[in-house]
């Protein structure tokens, strides 16, 4: 099957395929370096945003000090300090904590959004009902939810819930829009071929709305990150990248704060490459003409 295809189809798959996305991060770094230079030279007397290398130094510092860092030390029942460099020292603990929180909250939100998004796509009544609610929930910032949830639940649970709430609404909207775009004809064809509702969902709605689900995932995931930071800031001193940012902000340690922001961005970039881009590859061929 595949060998036949290789001969006839216009397959231009090289091992080494150029992509403009390679320039994204370097250009961002370049912009950062130049912006700081410019600001140093013309705007501020003292450096407000740390230079890239200062952040790298801070990174090294944190990696070297697996223990006794202000941020992990005073955690109630804090975990034992990590001993290997590849655990990234205290930074590793922050990343791991945030990663856990964000993944659990996000996956939960995704499952619910998949369900509600499809419901809203199918049922006009439910769509009408849920649209204003989505609007309202999306506009209330996580920072307003977080204190409440932290009151009611364990800190970890509360943060996961904040992440969930932040991610679910935009994903519902994106998936709903995707379902609405599916051509009635395709659904009819599948039904006429005997597809039962469940099959219709898995074999037609799901593949056909994959582009929108990916868009929803992208937006939802970044919402999740954003909310995480807010929630970690509110939830008292502890571990997590959001906490690192908040604490560094509080203490005026701009390099550490930037480091936290960079890692928040970096993790979301890694997700982009490893998850969303992969899904996208599956429909790129049939989608673009």
């Amino acid at each position, binding site marked *: 099957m595949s060998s036949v295809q290789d001969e*006839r189809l216009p397959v231009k798959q090289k091992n080494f395929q150029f992509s403009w996305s390679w320039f994204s991060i370097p250009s961002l770094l370049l912009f950062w370096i130049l912006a700081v230079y410019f600001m140093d030279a013309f705007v501020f007397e003292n450096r407000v945003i740390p230079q890239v290398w200062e952040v790298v130094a801070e990174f090294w510092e944190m990696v070297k000090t697996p223990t006794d860092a202000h941020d992990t030390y005073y955690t109630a029942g804090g975990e034992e300090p990590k001993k290997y460099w590849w655990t990234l020292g205290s930074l590793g603990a922050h990343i791991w904590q945030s990663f856990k929180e964000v993944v659990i909250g996000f996956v939960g939100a995704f499952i619910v959004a998949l369900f509600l998004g499809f419901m809203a796509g199918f049922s006009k009544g439910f769509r009408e009902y849920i649209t204003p609610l989505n609007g309202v929930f999306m506009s209330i910032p996580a920072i307003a939810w977080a204190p409440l949830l932290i009151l009611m639940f364990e800190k970890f649970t509360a943060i996961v819930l904040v992440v969930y709430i932040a991610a679910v609404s935009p994903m519902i909207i994106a998936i709903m829009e995707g379902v609405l775009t599916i051509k009635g004809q*395709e659904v*009819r064809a599948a039904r006429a071929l005997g597809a*039962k509702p469940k099959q219709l969902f898995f*074999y037609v709605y799901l593949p*056909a709305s994959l582009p929108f689900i990916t868009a929803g995932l992208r937006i939802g995931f970044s919402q999740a990150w954003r909310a995480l930071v807010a929630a970690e800031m509110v939830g008292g001193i502890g571990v997590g990248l959001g906490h690192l940012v908040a604490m560094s902000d509080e203490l005026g340690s701009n390099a550490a704060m930037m480091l936290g922001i960079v890692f928040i961005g970096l993790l979301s970039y890694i997700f982009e490459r490893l998850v969303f881009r992969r899904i996208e590859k599956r429909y790129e061929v049939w989608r673009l003409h």
Partner: protein
Amino acid sequence: MDSVQHVGGDPLVIDNLYFSYGQLTIFENLNITVQPGEFLSIIGPSGCGKTTLLNLLSGFLEPDSGSVLLRGTPLKPEDPHFGYVFQHATLFPWLSTIENVEFGLKMAGELSPSEMREKAMHYLAMVGLKGFEDYLPLKLSGGMQQRVSLARALTLEPRLLLMDEPFGALDAITRDDMNDELLVLWEELGQTVVFITHDIDEAIYLSDRIIVLNRPPHGIYKDFKSEIPRPRSGQETRTCDLFWEYKKDLRNDIEEVAKSAVVA
């Protein structure tokens, strides 16, 4: 092929059917009974309601009143015993040609992957598309897409086959080939076929019975049984006297229908 009942079965009954799109009435008190195993063609001018009728038969549209019943129950689109070939080939763009053809079998879930592949390949070859099994639909020509869509409906070997101008996009020769293939299949499996076409020759060549639809909402203009003997084969059938007679009559009928005013 066990699941297909060769003859037997029950008629498909359209009883006192009313249907309208909002203010635009398409059918008023339509009555048609399709006998099991019958090959029925429906012709009529563009916009007279042929596609609408097929949608009512298959259960995609609900009648305003009256009923379409097979063995006492209305047809559901999901019914595995009927197949539908749409006026526009509606292939799934994310599946390859062969996967499109296999789709129905996969939904039924009765065959192993290799059996499915084999059956699908059989029908794909029948519509002349061997060698294109790994193409994505958007890389096929219009006529090729339509043929894939035909193969897709046929693989299920349905007892009732609803076809909406399935060969409209094909050249004369391919079309004749397809007609013959369809007849062979029909004679073998004995399905009931409701066939929409705008080609008079095709209708006469294939059918047991032909219905000429009038402009809405006037319903049936003419309904007659063909006396052309079976088995039918190529030039022989197409040149027999009865064929020419029917052809002349039908042309006149359609001209008549077309002359009547356009729907207000």
